[in-house]
């Protein structure tokens, strides 16, 4: 079977015997972003600022004309929590996962895998309004057997915490 763990320092946990059999060159943030399958109007990453095997920092500005504001809520537009969780997952799980997969597998193999959301435990403490720019930071807890779990938080430009939690996803064949 494929060995799914990668060597990362720090507290991320990847299991014994999990060093990559044939380590590949790391993808750049731009290369990772190109491979994130979600596209507009359901892409919630504008830019990846930092990325390595332990963490990611990405940002996104919610366009004021996003369609969901018409219904959430009429006359009082607020970014839905489920969209914020999706934004956290796209950075902390999907993009981070693509980076980690690419350390172990060929580009062709990476293309064959899509990361699906498996579970999350998220707490909200702030609101994101139309036009707000948010920064999402993720830190890998483990990447093992194609499952990635990360601690992820989202903050507004003034540093205000919007939401934080533990999110997981798993790579499955497309």
């Amino acid at each position: 079977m494929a060995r799914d763990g990668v060597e990362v320092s720090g507290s991320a946990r990847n299991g014994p015997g999990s060093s990559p059999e044939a380590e590949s060159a790391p993808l750049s943030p731009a290369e990772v972003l190109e491979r994130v399958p979600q596209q507009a109007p359901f892409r919630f990453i504008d830019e990846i600022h930092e990325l390595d095997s332990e963490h990611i920092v990405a940002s996104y500005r919610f366009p004021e004309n996003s369609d969901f504001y018409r219904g959430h809520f009429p006359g009082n537009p607020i970014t839905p929590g489920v969209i914020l969780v999706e934004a956290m997952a796209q950075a902390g799980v999907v993009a981070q996962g693509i980076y980690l997969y690419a350390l172990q597998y060929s580009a062709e193999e990476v293309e064959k895998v899509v990361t699906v959301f498996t579970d999350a435990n998220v707490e909200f403490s702030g609101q994101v309004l139309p036009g707000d720019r948010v920064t999402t930071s993720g830190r890998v807890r483990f990447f093992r057997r194609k499952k990635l779990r990360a601690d992820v938080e989202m903050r507004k430009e003034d540093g205000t915490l919007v939401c934080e939690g533990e999110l997981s996803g798993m790579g499955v064949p497309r």
Partner: protein
Amino acid sequence: MEQSQVMEGVVKILTPWVKNDEALQAVSLETNILDDLKVNSARLVDVVIAFEDEFDIEIDDEDVDTVNTVGDAVQLISSKLG
């Protein structure tokens, strides 16, 4: 560690992810973790990490593929405990 103690630990770890309470009540070494207990396959990594923490062992990913039943898990953990 006695096999019964390992079994008790395995069941305790699996319990939060079990979706078939009836199968859990009748759990035995032959009980299949995915098919009988209806544990989500995406939770297997969580289960393995919990085994490692609970029993202070390391489980290779290759070994995980041999675990289908509660008995398989008990056997694997017991072999690691020596």
